[in-house]
């Protein structure tokens, strides 16, 4: 009887995991289909949708726009987020909880509220359609991931190591650069990866701020999905899945490295 109950439970969990994972994979065979519209299983193999994706300016321009604004947002988020994480974990100041709530709020605030809020003010300053508006907005959405990952990494640094460096004559900056920074580097990179994925996938803000001159890849896919299901989207989706999986793998390797580098005992 217990084994039967166990079997039911395990197969139920397996079914749910299949429900979670398999639909994501469905787009991959579709992207290699020779059919002009959706048919499954694909009648034949073809690379035409990838050719389409890489040869049409509407797709390549959107991809470049997404890539460079996401990279710029990530750099901005790291430059602002790493010092902020240090300030929040090491500093004690009134309103610290409030500051933390402000920094984390973009993750839980409804996307539409954030998007129209930014649009409401940015439009007044003629920022709609300017890539820099996307960079700033995506950085605000991405920065929580940097702050959280770096804070977690800082929690794993034994402060006595810094104290030792200071006692041995290092300046505070020197102690940070030579002791703390190498220890939290995996956390910074992991945060940067999650920040990049967040910025790269952002759609709602792009819907309101991109105009016609700063069209990102998600915005382009959105427009296509609303009008026709051209299998080029399947090719774009497959490329996105590959990119995400690659970046996640990188983040996982970094997480393991960070775990090994802990100088304080894990909780």
């Amino acid at each position: 009887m217990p084994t039967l109950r166990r079997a039911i439970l395990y197969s139920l969990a397996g079914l749910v995991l299949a429900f979670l994972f398999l639909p994501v994979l469905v787009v991959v065979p579709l992207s290699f289909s020779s059919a002009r519209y959706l048919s499954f299983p694909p009648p034949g193999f073809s690379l035409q949708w990838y050719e389409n994706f890489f040869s049409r300016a509407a797709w390549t321009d959107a991809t470049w726009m997404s890539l460079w604004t996401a990279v710029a947002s990530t750099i901005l988020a790291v430059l602002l987020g790493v010092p902020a994480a240090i300030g929040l974990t090491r500093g004690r100041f009134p309103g610290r909880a409030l500051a933390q709530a402000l920094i984390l709020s973009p993750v839980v605030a409804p996307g539409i509220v954030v998007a129209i809020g930014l649009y409401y003010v940015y439009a007044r300053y003629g920022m709609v359609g300017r890539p820099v508006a996307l960079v700033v907005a995506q950085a605000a959405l991405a920065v929580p991931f940097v702050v959280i990952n770096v804070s977690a990494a800082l929690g794993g640094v034994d402060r006595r190591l810094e104290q030792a460096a200071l006692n041995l004559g290092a300046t505070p900056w020197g102690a940070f650069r030579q002791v703390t920074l190498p220890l939290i580097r995996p956390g910074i990179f992991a945060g940067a990866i999650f920040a990049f994925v967040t910025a790269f996938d952002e759609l709602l803000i792009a819907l309101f701020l991109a105009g016609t001159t700063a069209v990102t890849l998600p915005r382009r896919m959105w427009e296509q999905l609303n009008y026709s299901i051209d299998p080029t989207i399947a090719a774009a989706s497959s490329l996105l899945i590959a990119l995400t999986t690659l970046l996640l793998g990188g983040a996982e390797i970094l997480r393991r490295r960070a775990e090994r580098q802990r100088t304080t005992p894990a909780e």
Partner: protein
Amino acid sequence: MSVALSGAMPAAGRRSRPWRLPPSLLALPLLAFLLIFYAYPLASMLARSVYDQGWTFSGFGALAGDAVFWRVLGTTAQVAFVVTLVCLLLGYPVAYVMSRVRSGTANLLMVLVLIPFWTSILVRTYAWMALLGRRGIVNNALIAMGVVDQPLQLMNTRFAVYLAMVHVLLPFMILPLYAVLRGLDWRLVQAAEGLGAGPLGAFRQVVLPLSLPGIAAGCVLVFTLALGFYITPVLVGSGSDVMLSMLIGDLVNRLDWPRASAMAVVLLAMVLGVFALLARLVPLGRVLQGGR
């Protein structure tokens, strides 16, 4: 001699920098950035609901008498509630099994959760469109198997909204549940069984109460995210599945700021209200670390 030297050196080093800034100042640039480019725009838009060259409540007044608004509010709450419930029922067994298997297997199962979790919502919604369309994979399979003659209307239905939203939000339920169940002291279950509780009794009286924080955290996350959902319901829903966020977007496109901002206040208040009730239970940090 050497002792005196090692004592003097850092003191000299410290004297050469007469003041040291408190580390908390390092948070200032980010806070300033967020206040200017994020909080200020958001606050001015929300303030627009009560102030426009003078105090006004015309936006809220218009909403109160607007039957469409109340219907959409009802739809939004209902969809969010159903999605949360289904996510809990589907997510709990997964989190439970993940916490009972060996850590290598658990890590592998975690990959199956995390890859969809990080895959773009657009991609996942597109996959459901490909599956549920009139000439989609599900209909083709059903016709080929002779289950139905005519393709079923699966896309642009409430069912499609539930299915796709549960798919997108399920990881937000599994991750906090798993975090709690993994840390559970399973010897308590053995003790309960040793004292004569059946497996179901042990689950109901030991595991379930101890996993309540995880249940609360997962439900808060899924419910609040579902309340503000936009992309998925627009693409797979029908005209009668309009959610609050879709109505807000529509109003902004028509530049009806009084109503749009009032509605944004309502939506944000619902989300913040749920969070304020249960915020301390939500391990937001763990979710933001990519699920670990």
